[in-house]
């Protein structure tokens, strides 16, 4: 083993692993800003970016909610209805969690 491999195999390897993970994650975090500061914001790109927040939400939650079946679908619906009615995010969240807990307790 050469010196570098000896260091990596020692406890310093964990430090290196964390540093490597932190580095690539930070690069992901800044890449969008770096790229967009060099791209001219055309109306088409702007439309695409405007669609992003809702798209990320649906892409993240839809498979998870469907995997968890009817209780999850009902709980999510309750959360959204409570949010539409009150416009208070914490109320929507509690309505969703409460509904899920009740369904599971009696289901």
């Amino acid at each position: 083993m050469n010196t570098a491999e000896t260091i990596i195999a020692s406890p310093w390897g964990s430090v290196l692993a964390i540093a490597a993970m932190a580095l690539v994650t930070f690069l992901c975090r800044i890449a969008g800003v770096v790229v967009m500061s060099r791209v001219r914001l055309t109306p088409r790109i702007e439309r695409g970016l405007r669609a992003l927040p809702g798209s990320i939400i649906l892409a993240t939650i839809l498979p998870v909610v469907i995997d968890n079946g009817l209780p999850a679908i009902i709980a999510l619906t309750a959360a959204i209805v409570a949010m539409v009615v009150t416009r208070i995010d914490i109320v929507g969240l509690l309505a969703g969690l409460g509904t899920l807990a009740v369904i599971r307790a009696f289901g």
Partner: protein
Amino acid sequence: MSSGIRPHFSAAGLRYGARAALPAFPGFIMFAVAFGTAAAQKGLSLGETLGLSAFVYAGASQMVGLEIWQQAWTPSTILTIMTVTAIVNARMILLGATVQPWLRNEPLARTVLNLFLITEAGWLVGTRYHGEGGRDVGVLLGCGIILWVVWLLATLSGFFAGALVPDPRRFGLDLVMPIFFGVMLVPLWKGAKPALPWLVAGLVSLVVHALVPGYGFIIAGALAGVAAGMLIE
């Protein structure tokens, strides 16, 4: 832009952001406690566990990282964990792209900090504020700082007391993140037509999730949504 306010930064914004982040706390606590618990069970030291939470600060990649964590590292296992982390976190590129116009005139050091602290939940809180016409960058940073602190404290609790936590399923807490995301969808709603790309995103993510293992469905769905948004006049 409908609002005439220029992007700016204020301490009041920091405080507002910290308060606005509150609904994201349960999801962060839940996830970080679970991570701290899993890390302790896997035999990671406190330093390693906190190091991951503090510097990587990206839940899904931390969890996946634990699965391939090594007692003795080699250059190739380091490269593996780096690649896997990059794949899981690639979706963050999209978050940065949307906040770039808001951060355009910010000092570099503050933008670096803001982006280091960006997470989907914090970004959604910031996006809602921005969508309602707010332009104070302090809100985004305040949200980022408080969520990072919550994340670290919850990791610490999970590491030492994870075994004491009752089954989170009993309180529906395993689904706290999806439910929070769903709630944040409501203020984004501007009618059926602007939501059409969301539908495309959801359908594509379902298909990818069914066909490909891992977290790829998020970025695939998100990119499909952006593409749909660009195509729909």
